[in-house]
């Protein structure tokens, strides 16, 4: 079952279609094919980068893997087991192993909980053996990892800057020591120095604990830096994939070429 050749995650023919809505004038809109028949694998301990047009289905792909977007068809194989078809209660067992850093930190943090509460909650569920003091230490350590002061534990989400909130989302994903993290634009709100600290932290954890990342991003320099393999998405499909050298060095698709041409020069 755990043969080294088996990828940690394999996505086969995944589609997510949203039904069209009946709108004003009672016209029925066409269904939206947010993700259309995509297949890819994520090897254990590696990072697969995902780039592509805004609205091309990157976040939807990530959400479908953890059942936050409805699967229209396709298989999500985690260590060879199809987790896409599991009912919600059975999927809970996998939720500790697969975490997601959400693109929109503001809407993904409970506004009524302080940061200690937000970071403790997953720890209480998945590591009930920890004492309260140990849990608090662990939370402070998680914050330090993303360059935030332990003083922040008693603050609420609205009392932070955009980049600080984004880092709280990262700390929360790391709290339960997952195997796979779906990182949806995890460093887009950070200045280049803090961004570097966080990316280095993610890479250190990968080297130490063998973490695996699906890393969605728009900054091609960051994607080039973190990725072992890159997927390029456009209109719900993967239009091109390969090593960073292939994709960024000699792109075949017109969209990928346009992307590279649009990187601001300075």
């Amino acid at each position: 079952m755990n043969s080294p050749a088996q990828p940690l995650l394999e996505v086969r023919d995944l589609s997510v279609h949203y039904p069209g809505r009946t709108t004003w004038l009672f016209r029925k809109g066409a269904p939206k094919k947010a993700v259309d028949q995509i297949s890819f694998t994520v090897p254990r301990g590696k990072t697969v980068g995902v780039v592509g047009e805004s609205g091309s289905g990157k976040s939807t792909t990530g959400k479908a893997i953890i059942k936050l977007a409805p699967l229209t068809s396709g298989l999500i194989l985690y260590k060879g087991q199809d987790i896409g078809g599991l009912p919600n209660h059975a999927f809970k067992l996998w939720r500790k192993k697969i975490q997601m850093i959400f693109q929109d930190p503001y809407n993904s943090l409970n506004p009524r909980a302080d940061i200690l509460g937000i970071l403790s909650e997953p720890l209480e569920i998945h590591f009930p053996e920890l004492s309260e003091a140990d849990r608090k230490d662990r939370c402070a350590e998680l914050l330090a990892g993303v360059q935030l002061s332990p003083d922040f534990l008693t603050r609420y989400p609205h009392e932070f800057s955009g980049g600080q909130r984004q880092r709280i989302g990262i700390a929360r994903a790391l709290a339960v020591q997952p195997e796979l993290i779906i990182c949806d634009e995890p460093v887009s709100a950070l200045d280049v120095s803090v961004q570097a600290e966080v990316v280095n932290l993610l890479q250190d954890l990968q080297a130490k604990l063998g973490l695996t990342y699906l890393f969605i991003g728009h900054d091609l320099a960051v994607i080039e830096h973190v990725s072992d393999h890159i997927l390029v998405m456009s209109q719900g499909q993967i239009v091109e994939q390969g090593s960073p050298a292939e994709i960024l060095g000699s792109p075949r698709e017109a969209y990928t070429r346009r992307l590279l041409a649009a990187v601001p020069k300075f």
Partner: protein
Amino acid sequence: MSVPILKVRDLGVTFRTGDRTTIASTEVNFELAAGEVLAVVGESGSGKSVSALALTRLLPPSPSCEINGSIKLNGRELVGLTEGQLSKVRGREIAYIFQEPGTSLNPVYTIGFQIGEAIELHRPEISDRRAAVLAALRDVHIDDPARVADSYPHELSGGMQQRAMIAMALACDPKILVADEPTTALDVTIQQEIMDLLARLRRERGMSIILITHNFGIVANFADHVQVMRKGRIVEHGPTAQVMGDPQHEYTKGLIACIPRLGQRRHRLTTLKDELKVS
């Protein structure tokens, strides 16, 4: 450059929650001319957003949040105005593209309704509002504007929400646009289209832009002046070419050295700690 339309003197913002006091920004001084693009860069948490929100007091009320100093818009002092007076400044005079679309889009109304509302409020002369909404969405390079107009925010991707918010801010036809990280959720092709659009509006309408960003590529190609913030203060300020080409402050130098560049893959990304010993 011509006479400044905005003059900010010794602006400071302090938050108070229970017995905790946070000085989010202090001694912020700058001027903005008509048609000027001022970029604000710096550390995450250094007070960039809060200082910009303070201009029209889009912050919690006193005593939870105190604003000091002076903000003069065309000679008129904004600090101390009533909520009713400030609401007239917001939108038509100073409009915002907020850093997080989730904080400003209303989840219970469609995107089209929300943009339509902004148009109704600020441009009542427009009669065919539906057409204006679709045109506004097309301007920000949404290629299926009808579907997006009829969608609720949660049915859109991050980058589509961001562009919807840009459309909403531009619908106000503001004199000053505060664009707080306006392109973080956009791929570089659309990022370029949006920056081209803002450049055109600045040229055609003389709109001034305060552009808060972590993206130095955008700063270099777009801004006239740059202001660098750290720990609530402006540590460096000057013309873009000067600040980027010959930075004076240690923090600015360090920050520029940390910019990851395509095609120069390294083992580890450079952080300020590697670069220099700034406290």
